């Protein structure tokens, strides 16, 4: 299998009637996108926004992030087996992609779905500020907010959203066909018989709820381990969905998996990569977990692998089969390295206190003695010990549309694998100490509303600070309103892209003195 990836880096996104890519500017026709998505009768409305890194913007209700890719030559369609794409084996030929840009699919979870499926959490991405801790804060997005028919059942809702997201990505990627990519890279596993043979064991959750979750060629249920060529993964053979997609299992992450991009350059130099074994996790019984582990090790053994790089996408009981797999591999004489985040991922205390206390929770909930080579991608806590002192609000010149620091962020080596969760539970850690915000637990938006988006109710006796008109969104009648100027057509669709959201406050050591706020 020989795959050539042509990359179009995106530095600006423009709306225009002629879609295309020209010297870093990606032009998108929003009307065409809107009409393509609205072809599906399950979708009531769509709102389209552009989001750039560094903006004072918070995106909520994130369902999936999809990198637009298009197969220019070779068998099959990118992201095969889902959204109506054929299931033909991919990984050969020429594929074009955008870099630094993705389609962001947003939709509020319907109440009955939220009650039924805990995986359908509400997640958010902050494009600037202390909450911008993951790689997703560095991408440029076409944010597509979708309102579906409220009566949809789980599988239909999931399917409608995922299809919409992929149709948008297909539309955007289609314009790349005629252009010449400035960057090209070839991916092939040419035989290297003299070098040690290495297998990548890619453990992926399978959902315990039927019909949803990460899919291989769209196949989501639990299954015994199977073999994929890494080019298949680069062509989108592994994809998320709208339920579990964001943040740790989104489609973008699978095609931009840093492990693939680390292994490939070393193939033929230090090692001979023989393939990627996909093992599903979250089996319900110990016997099933053991079976998956034994079969994974056997597949690696049949490939005559001498080494294995084991990765997973987090979970609780999933760690048991991952550790059993590592144990079986080592027992089969295959040397194993485990790349993992740490269990206490919610240590997001971005305060100087972290420097003193750190975390003494066990980094891994379960382990086997054979797991003696582990690389950690840490927790969600940022490397520096706290946000900048002083005002968090950057200075804005009156009349300026964006603050002076906005613009493409220089690429920083961001840890991609660690960003498993950025849901609201993690951000709870960032709330100020003091009186609890009023918790209105009716309706799914209430969560986002209660934690961040309502003005804080001061304790009795303390005068409330006046809010400048237009400076912050205020909750009115259950709908959030952002200042005008945000693009989008359908006024009925609730916003997920919020301009100038309330600042996530850092926790302070002492409770605030009466009369002072920060």
């Amino acid at each position, binding site marked *: 299998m020989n795959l050539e990836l042509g990359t179009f880096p995106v530095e600006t996104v423009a709306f225009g009637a002629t879609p295309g890519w020209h010297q870093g500017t990606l032009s998108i026709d929003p009307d065409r996108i809107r009409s393509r998505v609205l072809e599906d009768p399950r979708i009531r409305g769509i709102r389209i926004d552009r989001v750039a890194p560094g903006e004072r913007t918070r995106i909520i209700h994130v369902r999936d992030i999809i990198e637009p890719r298009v197969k220019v030559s070779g068998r099959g369609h990118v992201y095969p087996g889902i959204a109506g794409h054929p299931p033909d084996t991919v990984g050969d030929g020429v594929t074009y992609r955008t870099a630094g840009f993705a389609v962001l699919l947003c939709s509020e979870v319907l109440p009955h779905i939220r009650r039924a499926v805990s995986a359908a959490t509400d997640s958010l991405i902050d494009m600037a500020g202390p909450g911008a801790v993951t790689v997703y804060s560095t991408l440029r997005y076409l944010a597509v907010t979708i309102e579906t028919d409220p009566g949809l059942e789980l599988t239909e809702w999931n399917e409608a959203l995922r299809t919409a997201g992929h149709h948008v990505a297909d539309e955007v990627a289609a314009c790349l066909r005629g252009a010449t990519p400035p960057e090209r890279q070839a991916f092939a596993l040419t035989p290297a018989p003299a070098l040690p043979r290495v297998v990548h064991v890619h453990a992926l959750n399978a959902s*315990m709820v039927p019909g949803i979750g990460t899919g291989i060629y769209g196949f989501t249920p639990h299954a015994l381990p199977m073999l994929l060529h890494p080019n298949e993964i680069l062509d989108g053979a592994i994809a998320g969905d709208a339920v579990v997609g964001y943040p740790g299992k989104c489609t973008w992450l699978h095609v931009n998996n*840093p492990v693939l991009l680390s292994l490939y350059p070393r193939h033929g130099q*230090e*090692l001979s990569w023989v393939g990627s074994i996909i093992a599903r996790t979250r089996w319900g019984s110990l016997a099933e977990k053991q079976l998956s582990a034994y079969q994974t090790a056997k597949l690696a053994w049949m490939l005559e692998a001498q080494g294995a790089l084991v990765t997973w996408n987090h979970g*609780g*009981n999933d760690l048991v089969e991952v550790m059993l797999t590592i144990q079986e591999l080592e027992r089969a004489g295959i040397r194993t390295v*485990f*790349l993992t985040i740490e269990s206490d991922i919610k240590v997001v205390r971005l305060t100087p206190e972290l420097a003193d206390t750190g975390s003494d929770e066990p980094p891994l909930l379960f382990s086997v*003695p054979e797991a003696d080579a582990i690389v950690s991608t840490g927790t969600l806590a940022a490397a520096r010990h706290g946000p900048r002192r002083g005002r968090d609000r950057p200075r804005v010149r009156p009349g300026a549309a964006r603050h002076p620091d906005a613009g493409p962020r220089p690429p920083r080596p961001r840890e991609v694998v660690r960003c498993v969760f950025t849901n609201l539970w993690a951000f709870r850690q960032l709330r100020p100490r003091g009186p609890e915000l009023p918790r209105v637990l009716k309706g799914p938006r209430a969560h986002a509303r209660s934690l961040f988006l309502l003005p804080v109710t001061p304790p009795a006796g303390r005068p409330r600070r006046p809010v400048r008109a237009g400076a912050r969104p205020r909750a009115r009648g259950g709908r959030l309103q952002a200042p005008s100027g945000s693009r989008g057509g359908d006024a009925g669709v609730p916003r997920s892209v919020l301009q100038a959201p309330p600042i996530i406050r850092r926790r302070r050591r002492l409770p605030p003195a009466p009369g002072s706020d920060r």
Partner: protein
Amino acid sequence: MLRIGHYLNQFFAGIGAEAHANYPPEVREGPLGPGRAVDGLVKGNGRVVSTLICGDNFFNEHPDDARRAVQDWLTTVRPDLVLAGPAFAAGRYGSACAEVCRLAEAAHIPAVTGLHPENPGLLVYKRTYAVPTGNSAAGMGPALAAMVALAKKRVAGTLGPAAQDGYLPRGIRRPGARETTGADRAVAMLAAKLAGRPFQTEIPVDKYDAVPPAPPVADMRHATLALVTTGGIVPKGNPDRIKRCSENRWCEYDLTGLDALSSDAYECVHGGFFNLPACQNPHLVVPLDAMRRLEREGAFGQLCNVLCSTVGNDQRLADCQRHGQEIGRLLRRREVAGALLVAT
């Protein structure tokens, strides 16, 4: 000027050896024994203003009195820094030093000790700031120098990780940035492992503490048993709003007169697994029906009429430990002899 308080046992204070191990706590002004060397090391920047002496046996056999003496000493003297020992490999002395450090830290006073890496005192207070020492007092000079150096860094706030600044690992992990991404480091580690080159794991596998087993239930026919679960079985509607994930509380529910948990009245709110089967039949997690039947048949005395329930999904270890202690206290008050903990 740094005011240092020094803790010593009876031997290093010059009182006597094993025969005087019951020496009760005594405070003396200024440095004693090794404290004088400390004074020399901090000359100009600090001095040992007070020494607390206590016999090793006394400390271990009268822990409450010893603790009180330490706390009184800390309150009266108010040192800026506490040094304990060094205790080298002495187990009782090491435990006492660790405890002194713990009490000092609780009073917000930085404390440093010196222990041999296998000193059982490290188990007393895992987060002791301890420099590694040899196993005898022959290494006193270097041990004190290392303790003072560590203490200076702590007071200045410039202390780095254990491996870097030469103290014993405290089991604390802090976020930090590395030069290359995890993926690159993992591939490099694999290449090293395959080539037989040395490598350093980034997560040393930690063991949970062993729990001494409780004695068996002596008289099952008259024993009171209780049901506990981390599977999130709660009354329907979740009146206490137990979270599906990351919960830090547990709740008790009355089982008086209940022979069964019907799906109309109970549900499963655990967010970490597909909980529909458990919602449709809560007995799949809390086997109340079987327990009641066996109770009636006399297989055991009686069922405690309290169900202790929480959601174990992504709970912090510290919370789990606290829950265990609290639930244990409740069950002890109810004279429960044995408990079934159903974990999901």
